[in-house]
């Protein structure tokens, strides 16, 4: 039995050049990722992005074709799952239906050869951690979905693993319970200082819970960063489109620019507008402009900007969304938060649009 390691780095995970192929498909394609000890990291991506395969490789249920996985500096790539000493919470709880709640939680301790008394004591303590002290004697089937999920968490942390892996653990819960559990899991993680690797396809969940988010698409790591970074400064077109709402508008660079520099973009059917180059662009290069709906502004009077026609105004309480059509048939969404005193518009009105250069990110388009 492995004891809890006092070493601060014991809970760090290094994934180096991980590749997993299923036939001709690269489920994971050369992903490298460093997860710090005590960090809450979300693996975010659409289905087929490889996020679950990465988690299963860490857990030991998948073996990679290339690359290795280090846990606290130790290579665990080929170690069988039962000897990795990681905690895992599955999508559908997977509590053993023939055991009581307490027996479920004590199971990993039994497998580690602990005596009955210590098992009982530690299982009860874990049950208290997830605030289910009274339900130890019940069968899993007698618990609600949220309670089952808490038991699954208790079972995964009772042997004090260095890392807790979670495979879309909240997807089976309804919306309210899900939001409640998100906060609860976050608190629990801080409390016991465990490293958490959390797979989800829900961007809100990832942004809410994680210290850092790894965005994946088609088996490749698109961007790794803090939630704010991902939203404010997406590094690829995919990330800009996947996280939050985004308008895309094609155009060409009016001048050459290095990454992070301001650049004018000649928009299709419109004039030149300011933007920020994400990658290096040469004059005349095709670019795609990403604009957040809430960063678009209706300019007052005869200011210089992009003329557009309001086709629809949708009132949603906390904000009003305008559907706009600009020259060249470009369709845009614009969001006006309520109560900020910003100018509004009604359907059929002609308006002029503008934005800050920093809010328009220009991605170079591969020719």
């Amino acid at each position: 039995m492995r004891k809890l390691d006092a070493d601060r780095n014991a809970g760090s995970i290094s994934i180096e050049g991980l590749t997993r192929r299923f036939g001709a498909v690269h489920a994971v394609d050369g992903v490298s990722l460093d997860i710090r000890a005590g960090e809450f990291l979300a693996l975010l991506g659409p289905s087929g992005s490889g996020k679950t395969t990465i988690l299963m490789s860490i857990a030991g249920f998948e073996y990679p074709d290339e690359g290795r996985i280090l846990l606290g500096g130790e290579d665990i790539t080929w170690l069988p799952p039962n000897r990795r000493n990681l905690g895992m919470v599955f999508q559908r709880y997977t509590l053993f239906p023939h055991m009581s709640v307490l027996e479920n939680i004590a199971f990993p301790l039994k497998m580690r050869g602990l005596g009955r008394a210590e098992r009982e004591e530690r299982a009860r303590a874990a049950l208290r951690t997830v605030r289910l002290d009274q339900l130890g004697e019940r069968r899993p089937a007698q618990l609600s979905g949220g309670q089952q999920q808490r038991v699954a968490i208790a079972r995964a942390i009772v042997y004090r693993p260095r890392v807790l892996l979670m495979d879309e653990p909240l997807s089976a819960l309804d919306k309210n319970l899900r939001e409640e559990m998100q906060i609860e899991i976050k608190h629990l993680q801080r409390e016991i200082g465990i490293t958490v690797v959390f797979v989800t396809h829900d961007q809100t969940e990832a942004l809410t819970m994680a210290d850092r988010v790894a965005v994946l698409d088609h088996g490749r790591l698109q961007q790794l960063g803090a939630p704010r970074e991902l939203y404010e400064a997406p590094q690829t077109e995919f990330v800009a489109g996947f996280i939050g709402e985004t308008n895309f508008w094609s155009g060409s660079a009016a001048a050459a620019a290095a990454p992070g520099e301001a650049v004018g973009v000649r928009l299709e059917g419109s004039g030149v507008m300011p933007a920020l180059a994400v990658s290096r662009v040469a004059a005349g290069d095709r670019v795609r402009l990403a604009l957040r709906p809430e960063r678009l502004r209706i300019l007052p009077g005869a200011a210089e900007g992009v003329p557009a026609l309001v086709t629809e105004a949708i009132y949603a309480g906390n904000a009003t969304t305008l559907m706009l059509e600009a020259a060249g048939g470009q369709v845009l969404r614009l969001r006006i938060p309520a109560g900020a005193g910003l100018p509004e518009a009604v359907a059929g009105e002609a308006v002029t649009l503008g934005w800050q250069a920093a809010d328009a990110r220009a991605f170079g388009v591969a020719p």
Partner: protein
Amino acid sequence: MSGGAPNRAGRMAVNAAAYAVTVFLLLPTLIIIPMSVGPERFLRFPPAGFSLRWYAEYFRDPDWVAATLFSLEVALLTALCATVAGTMLALALVRGRLPGRGLVELLVVGPVIVPHVALAVAMFLVFERLRLTGTLLGFTMAHTVLALPFVVFTVLAALYRFDAELERAALSCGAGRLATFRHVTLPLIAPGVVSAALFAFIISFDEPVVSFFISALDRKSLPRKMFEDIDYNISPTLAAVATMLTALTVLALLLGFVLKRAAERRAAARSG
């Protein structure tokens, strides 16, 4: 919904046909029961009175008792061997990477597809040479082969119903492969395994064809003894034996049914 008069008439005709077939299925077997308690030497329906003399006759006859005990012995051993070997194979098929899997699957259905008379004659030939006819070992091996397909398919069904993710959960909890099987897989497929054993028992206990050929004069199974008696004289003792055999089958089926219900309740509770 109502489909109109002709529709309803058609449905009633189909229903009537279905229930008539049910009666046809059950009646011949059930009619034996009242006849087995008739007092006369000749079977009559309805019986002329009530008497258990033919049951007593059966228990007094050392030949019948010996054949029954031998069949019991064979059936118990068969249930044991077939269940163990069949469960192991089912595990290899579902959880393993078995080389030549297609061939193995063909072998599984083999004993069902090959006519039993062909198998029986072939076994007779080889068993004679190996001096296995009329032995416990010979009977057990033969019946185990006949029962194996049913065991394999029953356990396979249980394994497919079983949520494999639970095994992963056990592994993630630190359980090794053997501990996972012992603490998680086996308890959850147990109803399937037990009904497989029941199937194997009934198949062996009732098996007439192979038994007919590999019995010896002094050591025969119950079906072989019945076969001989039917061939020579349709005595009421046979009706008593048939009734008891049917009762045994009903019991086994009921037991299987209860087990299946228990397993289903467990599965339903899990998904609920």
